[in-house]
Structures are given as structure tokens and as C-alpha cells.
């Protein structure tokens, strides 16, 4: 689960997926809430309108029936006061004269006849006149001095006067505000929760994919026993892992078959070679005289045949990515020094000069025996093909985190025909006495170690061969 790759979380696929999913969820829930809110608001308004209509009818009845005497104002006022106590959605039940409801009766002249409510009603009347309240259904009315609008119903009374009943929308607004507030809090919590859950699950799932990728990339040329991790779930990821493993099974089995074939070929050829060589050696130690010459040359031929067989099998296995490596740490600098110590006398005998320009110790993790043979091959190549007086320069450098072993000479270089195919088996120059496996073997070994070989002719003349091999992990850090 750790982000070993060093990639910031924000750039992971899990982060993107959870962001998108959370965004979709947030928008969806918000939309649902908007509809719900509208529905609730309309319902609240319908109820207050129903209340207003009912109450105003009652008030009209009372106003019409009550005799227009001194008590008229008191009676109607009392009824209006009572009505204000039954306001729907009233949250606070304080005894203080509230401004939730107002009752206004105007005379025929339009002046205030009776007022129940906060203040003296002048502002309300002014607002009513300005807004032109429709008679048949309640309307919104903003009164200056009150932040919250009123819902006002009006009805004419028989005596020519007019009754207005106003209900402040404060309480219903408070209900709606509470609803909104609670929703937003819950919505935020939910969105965070959803983000968390989606992030956790996708990350878990993707980390499984990542583990598969890591395992798959670890399964290299020589290590085919490992399998990618599988899970018991029956999802796409598990399916991917199973499919990969099945593919690896097939590759391993064909690799195994290849090994069996090369092994049995090696065995079937080497056993008689061993027997022949042994018998020749025994006869060489018993026979004296002229016959020894033919036995000696037979042994030498046999050794050449063995060498050819060895290299052929190595090249064949390497071409099929099936070379079995047993890796250890090798210092290329040290190896080159002892290799040069080995080859120097032969080279100077032939009039060749060999120079090493090295950056100092440079470690690689590789199959020692293969690397030894590879370098010996390169040196043998120079020794066999260079004319006297030539110089071989060996450079050992660190290049793009790869150990680069560069061989340069000032000899004739590669013949044009050979150059294109020189890494193929059996390709050799016309003058060459070898069996044409040299460079193919060098390339095979380099490839088996995830490296590569390039060969070209230098502009100044002479050959340029460059072998690059991955350096040991500790070396790469430096």
C-alpha cells in the first residue's frame, strides 16, 4: 500500500478515480436536494397560504357579525391576536408581542381602521398600497423596516372596509434554513466519506495491479519460476493475474523444453567426445614415435569441436533468452586488468599495443564465467584480426547508468559485407580462421545481462565495439 514508487498520491489513478466519483456523487446528491428543497418550500407556502385564507375568512365573518360599536375594535383585535398564536411553523413561543402576524383593517377611505401587530401599521399600509395586493390569493410583501417579507392575504368586508392579514415568512425561512444547514453538513460528511471509501477501494485494487506489474517485471529472462500474486476474488484484476500466470506457465514449459533439448544434445555430444578424448590421451601416453603427431592433432581438433559446440549452445540459448545465469558481483576494472595481463604478452608478440583507460572500480552483477568468456572473445578477436603495429584501446566508463566497455583499434575495421550481419551466427570475414561465433556470443552474453553491443567502424579507421552492461545497484546510486 505504500507509495514505494515515489509518485505523489495526487498523480495516482486512484486519486483521479476517487475525485471523479466523488464529484459525480456530490453533484447528484446536490441535485436531489435542490428538488427536495423546492418541494418542501412550496409545501410550506401552500400550508401558510391555506392558513392565511382560513384565518382571513374567519376574521371577515367576525368583522361582519360584530356590531360596529365601541367593542368592535377590541373583539376583532382579540380574534386577530388569537389567530397569531396559531401560526404554522412557529418555532419560538415567546410571549412578547411578536411581529410574526399583523392584522390590518382599512376603512373605505383606505386609512387604517384597526391595527394589530408590531408598530402602528403605517409602513405596512404603505407597502400594501405600493404592491397592489391581489384580492383572491396571498401575495409576498416586503415591508420597509422588516428584513423578512410577509405573506399577505386580503379580503373585502361588506361594510366597504378591507381586511389584510400578514404572516411573516420568518419561521418558514428558518425551517428551510435549518434544512439547508443540516443538509450541507451531512452532505460534506458524506462526500468526504464517499471519497475516502472510493479512494481506499480503488487504491487497494490498483495496488494489486501494481504488485502484479512489479512481479511481472521482476520475472526476467532467467527467473521464470515466480508467479504474479493472485487473489481469491473473482474480479477483473484476479482474472488478469490468472491469465498472466497461465501465460508464464506456457513460457516456462517451452523454456523447460528448450533446456531439455539443449541439455540432452549437450549430453549426447559431450559423452562421446569425453570418451574419445580420454582414449586418445591414454594412447598418447602409451605410444611413442611418429604416430603421436596424428593423435595430438586429433585431440586439438576435438578441442576445437568442443569449443564450437559450447559456443553454439550458449548462443542458441541466449538467442532464445534461455541462458541460465548465476550472478555475482564482478569488478570490471579488476577483471580487465587481469585479462590484459593475460593477453598482453601475446599481443606484444604480434606487435600489438594494448591500452586501458578506466574510470577505476566499476561493479556489475553478472555471471562471472560468461563475462570472462565474453571479454576473452573480444580480446581473441583483436588478437586474431589486427595487423602488426596496431593499437587496441580499451575504455571503461560509466555511461547513462550503464558500464560501457569500449574497444577501439586502428586496424582495418570491419569489412562492409560483414558489418550488417556481424552479430549473426556463422558470419565472419573472408580471412577469418574462427568459426564465426565470436561476436554472436558477445552479443548473446550482453543481451542475457540486459545490456547491448554495438559495432561500427571509426571515422579515423579501425573498429569500434561497445558493450554496455547494467551496473550493480550500489554503483548506480553513486
Amino acid at each position, binding site marked *: 500500500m505504500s507509495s514505494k514508487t515515489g509518485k505523489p498520491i495526487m498523480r495516482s489513478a486512484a486519486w483521479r478515480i476517487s475525485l471523479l466519483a466523488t464529484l459525480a456523487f456530490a453533484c447528484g446528491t446536490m441535485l436531489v436536494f435542490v428538488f427536495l428543497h423546492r418541494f418542501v418550500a412550496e409545501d410550506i407556502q401552500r400550508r401558510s397560504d391555506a392558513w392565511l385564507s382560513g384565518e382571513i375568512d374567519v376574521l371577515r365573518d367576525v368583522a361582519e357579525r360584530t356590531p360596529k360599536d365601541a367593542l368592535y375594535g377590541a373583539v376583532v383585535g382579540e380574534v386577530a391576536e388569537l389567530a397569531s398564536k396559531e401560526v404554522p411553523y412557529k418555532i419560538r413561543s415567546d410571549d412578547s408581542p411578536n411581529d410574526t402576524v399583523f392584522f390590518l383593517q382599512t376603512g373605505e377611505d383606505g386609512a387604517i381602521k384597526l391595527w394589530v401587530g408590531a408598530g402602528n401599521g403605517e409602513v405596512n399600509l404603505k407597502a400594501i398600497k405600493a404592491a397592489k395586493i391581489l384580492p383572491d390569493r396571498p401575495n409576498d410583501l416586503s415591508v420597509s423596516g422588516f428584513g423578512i417579507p410577509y405573506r399577505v392575504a386580503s379580503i373585502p368586508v361588506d361594510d366597504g372596509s378591507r381586511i389584510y392579514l400578514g404572516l411573516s415568512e420568518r419561521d418558514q425561512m428558518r425551517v428551510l434554513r435549518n434544512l439547508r444547514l443540516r443538509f450541507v453538513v451531512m452532505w460534506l460528511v458524506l462526500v468526504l466519506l464517499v471519497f475516502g471509501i472510493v479512494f481506499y477501494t480503488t487504491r487497494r485494487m490498483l495496488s494489486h495491479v501494481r504488485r502484479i506489474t512489479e512481479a511481472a517485471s521482476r520475472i526476467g529472462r532467467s527467473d521464470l519460476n515466480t508467479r504474479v500474486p493472485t487473489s481469491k476474488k473473482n474480479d477483473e484484476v484476479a482474472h488478469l493475474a490468472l491469465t498472466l500466470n497461465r501465460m508464464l506457465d506456457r513460457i516456462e514449459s517451452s523454456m523447460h523444453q528448450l533446456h531439455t533439448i539443449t541439455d540432452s544434445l549437450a549430453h549426447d555430444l559431450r559423452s562421446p567426445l*569425453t570418451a574419445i578424448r*580420454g582414449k586418445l590421451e591414454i594412447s598418447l601416453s602409451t605410444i611413442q614415435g611418429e604416430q603421436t603427431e596424428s593423435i595430438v592433432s586429433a585431440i586439438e581438433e*576435438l578441442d576445437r569441436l568442443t569449443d564450437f559446440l559450447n559456443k553454439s549452445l*550458449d548462443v542458441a*540459448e541466449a538467442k532464445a533468452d534461455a541462458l541460465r545465469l548465476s550472478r555475482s558481483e564482478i569488478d570490471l576494472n579488476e577483471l580487465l586488468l587481469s585479462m590484459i*595481463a593475460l593477453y598482453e604478452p601475446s599481443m606484444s608478440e604480434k606487435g600489438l599495443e594494448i591500452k586501458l583507460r578506466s574510470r577505476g572500480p566499476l561493479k556489475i552483477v553478472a555471471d562471472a564465467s560468461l563475462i*570472462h568468456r565474453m571479454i576473452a572473445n573480444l580480446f581473441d578477436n583483436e588478437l586474431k584480426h589486427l595487423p602488426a603495429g596496431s593499437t587496441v584501446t580499451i575504455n571503461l566508463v560509466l555511461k547513462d547508468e550503464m558500464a560501457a566497455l569500449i574497444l577501439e583499434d586502428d586496424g582495418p575495421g570491419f569489412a562492409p559485407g560483414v558489418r550488417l550481419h556481424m552479430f549473426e551466427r556463422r558470419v565472419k570475414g573472408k580471412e577469418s580462421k574462427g568459426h564465426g561465433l565470436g561476436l554472436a556470443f558477445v552479443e548473446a552474453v550482453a543481451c542475457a545481462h540486459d545490456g547491448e553491443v554495438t559495432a561500427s567502424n571509426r571515422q579515423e579507421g579501425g573498429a569500434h565495439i561497445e558493450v554496455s552492461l547494467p551496473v550493480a545497484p550500489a554503483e548506480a546510486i553513486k
Partner: protein
Amino acid sequence: MRLLLVEDEEDIQGFLRHSLEEAGYEVDIAADAKTAESLAIENVFDILIVDLGLPDLDGISLILRLRQLGVGAPVLILSARRSVDDRVRGLEQGGDDYLTKPFALAELLARLRNLLKRNIPSAGEPTRLKVLDLELDLLRREATRSGRVLQLSPQEFVLLEYLCRNAGRVVTRSMILDHVWGMRIEPDTNVVDVHIYRLRGKVDGEGQQPLIKTLRGMGYVLKDR
């Protein structure tokens, strides 16, 4: 020295028995793992030669089985494959050795001697080697022939020391490469020969008896008689 040879190829059995007996070993032969196991339990062997490609069981499994049964003698593994796998590497680290077929008899014998030497606690390394009139002072890294000091490079001294330690016995080119340069390679050029020629030029002065002798098709020998 009693030796058990586990090898199924009759041809190889034949010449190996011949040369091993000539070298002074008392040789028992098993053609399969089963016979080898019963022979190894009934008798005590000083050393074993085991071929990896046996008909009934692979050589490594046989060696591990024998080890479990308490057979402690060192083993020389004969392998038809060049790239040795990790199990062979493991045995090699455990004190055993391996040799790839085909091999030179001289190398087989040298490896057997090495294995036996490893098993016997050495009574102190000698500090001087003497072969006829050639003397090597291993502490001062100095070689003299009939009292004349030889001007040798450090590497030439190591080469001469190796020849002296095997005086009278054939050493092959691959043995020299393995012991002096620490490499198991088969150059198809004359690199080892040139080293020997140079060394011979320094060791065998004019009028002196040539000590370093080339045996064509086999290798070199430092004469001790």
C-alpha cells in the same frame, strides 16, 4: 586411495578406470544411483566422482542423499552442461568441485588431488619449493636456478609456483588459466603458450637442462627428473 566412480557411459567408465588406476586410485564403479548408494553405504571411500546425467536419479540428488546418509567424502561432479546451476554452485561452496565434459585427464587428476588435499588438514604450508636445481622462496617471492636469481614478474612467479607444485605432472592450459588468472575460459588463441615461452626463456638458461616441457595436445609439465 579408494574412489567411487558413478558414471553410466561404459566408454567413459573404461578409460577413467584405466587412468585412475594408473594414478594409484583403487576404483569402484557404479553405473546408476541405486548401486552407488549401496556401495557408498557398505564401503568407505576417500573421494567420489559423480556424473550429473544418471539414468535413474540426477547426480545432485544422489550427492545430497549420500550426504544425508553420512557420506562425507569430497565429490568431483562431472557435468555435460557448461552453465552450472545453483545447486552445483552450492555444492562447490560446500567443498566439492565440478568439471565439464569433455575434460583433460590431467585436469581431472589435479582436481581430485585438490579435493583430497582440502580434506586432509595440512601440516603447515612449506615456505620453499625445490625442483631439481630450481628453488622458489615463497615468502620473498624469489626464484633461483642453480643459485642464479631469476627476474620474474609477480605473475610469472605465480605461474612458476603452480608448475612447481605440480612438478612431474601435466598441467593443461585451462588449469593454468583457472589457477593463475582465476578464469574458466577457453581462448582460441595462444595466450597461455606465450606466457610459458616467456617463462621458459627466463628459467631455462643457455646450457641448462630445459625444465618446462610442452606436451602437445595435453599441456605442460615441469620436469622433476
